């Protein structure tokens, strides 16, 4: 068997070295001036893309080895630390699951890095941007290839921090700096549960390695409820990273980052890490039906809630962000509904892969629109008529929207169908919810499409818009092709080797219902918005649009809770520390000492008569005591 372990560290080393090289060398210093003016600006981009391309080649090599049957699990790169029962290694898991995910991450990252050359062209901090982006790809690949819980946690956190840095890339904007902070802290809440889950699992099995935990659980079955609790805690990590309800609030704000970042991190890859992680630990998830139930409902609620909110957003990136939330909900729901004996986690991973293509495409198209509007307009109501001005972008956006909504024979059609089929078989209520969500998806996507690209131009920036350059459009076209054909690559067959299962299709009724939902959604959008509307027709439903526009007031509720809970507690502790511990106790002690000194000083006047008086008083007391 070919030894592929040597390839994997090279896969990780590529983007990491790119990040380090750019960080150390690409300053405003004299270093690049010798290479001429183009090199000076774009050197970072070429370094990042070059190293990533190298990594992708190694990754593809490893992918090929997996296809040829090389099962390489847990080759240790090095031992991180060990003490007593705790043994943490940096080791790999390479199988069909991580191979697929690795290819998706590498492919989408490459497209987006090329696109970034165009998008970030005028930005002065472009080298910083590419360094952070490379660091993100490194961390993401680390999650994908992680062979144990703690290594996954390590890269999990690193991904979180690169997301923080990239959301706050324009750190001088207060909104961007705040959004980054919010994303990090909300993710930390999820990671809190994740680590407790890991601790609990370690307490049960004494291991943190995926394979050894799996073997331990198989050899020594434990209480199902205990396992369910541990699984749900680990799922908390996914709730944070994949922005599931109730920790979804950070993702829409994350749109403060540059659009390529939104596309890569907050749509295609990082936010899908939660779903990937659930698939990676499927041996745990599939072992506890209670936990699966919780996971499925969390996903379902997120999918519906986000789709509802998306219908009333006006910022093109925020619409896509809520759409991402909704699709992530789909994937998480799919994990929760999986049939361990049948297709396993295939539907979730299938949708993850196709979603990575079409959502990246949608964001990049939106980015192309934003470039055309000089980075100063994201409100779809101030666009309009862009179809004629930028036909390629519009076409790509339409392809992305169709794929997302599950238009027949496009990639999203197959993956969504797989999930709907699962829901139909396992949970009728969630099936209904998922179908309604599918209809809403078609509605809000085509609302966005019609308003932004149809009708008359409604803003001065839109007036002057023109098609973007080829460095921007090239990645769009590549991703558009992937979005159309993503269903034909044989991803289900790759994940489920049993041909009978992977070739299964959902019942005809499911397909018809999904198509009906699609048609109703698009039809309603066309009826309301395609005929040159200048304001939102839903404004006529004041309460509904008010609630949806304010995202069900979840953020406001959280703000009140945080203020009332943490704020009050911190205020109380600050008060106690300042006025009770440092004030009363310490100052009080000091004051007592000083006071005693003051009193005692009265005895030391230096006046002979006073001493004589005290002497007489003392002698009297002693005499009294003796005589008594």
């Amino acid at each position, binding site marked *: 068997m070919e030894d592929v372990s040597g390839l994997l560290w090279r896969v990780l080393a590529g983007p990491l070295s790119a990040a380090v090289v750019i960080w150390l060398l690409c300053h405003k210093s004299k270093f690049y001036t010798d290479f001429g003016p183009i090199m000076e600006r774009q050197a970072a981009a070429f370094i990042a893309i070059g190293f990533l391309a190298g990594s992708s080649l190694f990754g593809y090599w490893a992918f090929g080895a997996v296809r040829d049957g090389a099962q390489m699990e847990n080759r240790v790169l090095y031992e991180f630390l060990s003490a007593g029962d705790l043994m943490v290694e940096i080791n790999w898991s390479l199988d069909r699951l991580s191979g697929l995910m690795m290819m998706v991450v590498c492919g989408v990252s490459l497209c987006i890095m090329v696109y970034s050359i165009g998008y970030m062209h005028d930005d002065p901090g472009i080298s910083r941007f590419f360094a952070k982006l490379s660091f993100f790809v490194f961390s993401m690949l680390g999650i994908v290839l992680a062979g144990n819980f703690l290594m996954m946690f390590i890269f999990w956190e690193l991904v979180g921090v690169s997301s923080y840095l990239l959301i*706050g890339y324009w*750190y001088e904007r207060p909104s961007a700096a*705040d959004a980054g902070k919010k994303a*990090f802290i909300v993710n930390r809440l999820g990671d*809190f549960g994740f680590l407790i889950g890991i601790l609990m699992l370690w307490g049960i099995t004494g291991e943190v390695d995926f394979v050894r935990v799996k073997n331990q659980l198989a050899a020594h079955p434990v209480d199902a409820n205990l396992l369910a609790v541990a699984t749900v805690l680990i799922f908390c990590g996914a709730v944070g990273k994949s922005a599931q309800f109730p920790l979804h609030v950070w993702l829409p704000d994350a749109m403060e980052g540059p659009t390529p970042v939104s596309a890569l991190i907050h749509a295609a890859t990082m936010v899908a890490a939660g779903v990937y992680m659930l698939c990676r630990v499927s041996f745990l998830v599939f072992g506890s039906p209670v936990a699966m139930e919780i996971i499925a409902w969390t996903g379902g609620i997120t999918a519906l809630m986000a789709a509802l909110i998306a219908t009333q957003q006006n910022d093109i990136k925020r619409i896509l962000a809520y759409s991402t939330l909704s699709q992530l909900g789909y994937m998480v729901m799919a994990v929760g509904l999986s049939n361990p004996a049948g297709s396993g986690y295939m539907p979730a991973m299938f949708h993850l892969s196709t979603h990575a293509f079409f959502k990246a495409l949608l964001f990049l198209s939106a980015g192309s629109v934003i470039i055309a509007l000089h980075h100063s307009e994201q409100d779809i109501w101030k666009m309009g008529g862009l179809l004629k001005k930028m036909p390629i972008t519009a076409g790509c956006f339409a392809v992305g929207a169709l794929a997302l909504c599950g238009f027949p024979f496009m990639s999203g059609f197959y993956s969504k169908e797989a999930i709907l089929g699962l829901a139909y078989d396992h949970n009728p209520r969630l099936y209904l919810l998922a179908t309604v969500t599918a209809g809403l998806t078609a509605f809000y996507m085509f609302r966005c499409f019609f308003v932004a690209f149809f009708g008359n131009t409604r803003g001065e920036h839109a007036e002057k818009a023109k098609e973007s350059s080829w460095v921007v459009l090239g990645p769009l076209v590549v991703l558009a092709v992937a979005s159309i054909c993503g269903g034909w690559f044989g991803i289900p067959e790759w994940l489920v080797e049993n041909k009978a299962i992977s070739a299964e299709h959902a019942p005809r009724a499911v397909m018809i219902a999904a198509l009906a939902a699609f048609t109703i959604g698009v039809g309603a959008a066309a009826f309301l918005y395609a005929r040159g509307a200048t304001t939102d027709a839903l404004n006529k439903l004041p309460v509904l649009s008010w609630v949806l526009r304010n995202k069900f007031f979840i953020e406001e509720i959280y703000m009140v809770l945080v203020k009332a809970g943490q704020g009050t507690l*911190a205020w109380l502790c600050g008060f106690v520390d300042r006025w009770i511990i440092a004030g009363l106790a310490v100052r009080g002690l000091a004051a007592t000492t000083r006071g005693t000194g003051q009193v005692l000083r009265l005895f030391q006047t230096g006046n002979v008569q006073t001493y004589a008086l005290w002497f007489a008083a003392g002698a009297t007391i002693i005499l009294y005591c003796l005589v008594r």
Partner: protein
Amino acid sequence: MDFLNILNGTILTPLVFAAGLCFMPARKWLAIRWLAILGAFITVVLSGLAFAWFNINDPGFQFVNRVTWVESLDMSWHVGADGISVVMVLLTGIVGFAATLVSWDITSRQKEFYVLLLIMIAGAMGMFASLDIFFIYFFHELALIPTFLMIGIWGSGKREYAAMKTTLYLSAGAFVALIGLIALYLALPAADRTFNLPTLLDYARQHPLAANVQRFIYPFLLFGLGTLVSLVPFHTWAPIGYACAPTATAMFHAGVLKKFGLYALIRIALPLLPVGAHDWNGVLLVLLLCNIVYGGLVAMRQKDFNYLLGYSSVAHMGFAFLGIASFTFIGLTGAVLVMFAHGIMAALAFGLSGYFFAQTGTREIKELGGLCRPLPFVGTLLVMTAFASVGLPGFANFPGELMVLFGAWQAPGWHAKIGAATVSWPVLLALWGGAVIGAVYMLRAIRNICFGPTPAKWQSLVDANIFARVPYVFLLVVLIWVGCYPKPLVEAIKPATGQIITAIEKAMPAVAPKR
């Protein structure tokens, strides 16, 4: 030539340089500075060599040198290092070198400043390398006294009040600990009384002290030493002390001297008084959780960045205490790793904060803002330090705190039943304090200091030049190196902590912790 011992070298080099500086004319301050840097550099090289030459397979004390001093009391110049000491010696060397380098901003009485700084380094080296209880105490006092002088003379803000407060607290803490040590000395039969630590440890292993004696002596050590480590509620000296101290002093005290209390607890109190430690563990647990959670919450309310860092170090010390209180091998090893990691991180944080202060003249978080624009290098490093502080993987704090949490999870008797699962509630609270509260106050401060629009008055600040960058980069490299590959440190610490845990197990088979 036994005296040519590497540990003697680490103690005496800074002392010799300090003595030499006394004879320099004060106006040649630049030469004085470079000589001091040379001394600190030789010290850090020696401490690095000590770590490199340390044999991790030998669980006993290495590099031992013993010269009898007072025979009747069995007092001797006695140095030697096991894994815990050698890691702390390494920490002292690194932080001492960095603290000497950052002192560009000292503009008056440079000679006295560097003499005191070198004495501090020597004292810290001595307290970690000595094996004689008298000298351990003596060297600690030797390192502590310069702290007070430096805060009082070169400090800023309410420096006299701060110097007084730190002096009172730390002297009181050391004094209470001294009472405990004397009581310990007197509790031994007259024939066996000794200041020699290895002999004492052997003796205690064979003849454990009576349980009620241990129970009586341990609180003196716990609260006395605890005060030195800012155990709540004896912590209020730390924030104001660090806020007013000159940069190098804050770095060295927070980084190194503060670890003395923990070191002495691990080195003296745990193996000699295991029953006492066990019986007082409940109290310690409550206090250390206060350190982590309460300290973190108070940090959220701070307006001055150094106060915030001070309270943050109070919170981090809680983690080291948690490792000690867990009574587990993993936890105790993690506690030592946290001591090292926090030492480097705190030194870096105070060093950078000092740079900001030297540039802007204020530490008010509200006054600052957008400093990443004019100061990209220092700003970036501050952001990275904040990440280290919130326990991000890749920095040394992560493996330390992780081991402490895993050790604490193993601790017997800390699990509460919640539904089907049992959860270690101290771990829950500690993780909440470390991961969530820690992230909130640190990122909030970073958001307000480094990010956001840059006020006009800070547009023209000057970023650190190549010389000024050296100490920061040095500390950061250590932090990242240990964070990515903690194994060498852990392997060095393990034999020593393993012995202590074995001793505890032997003393108290009934509460034998898991290994």
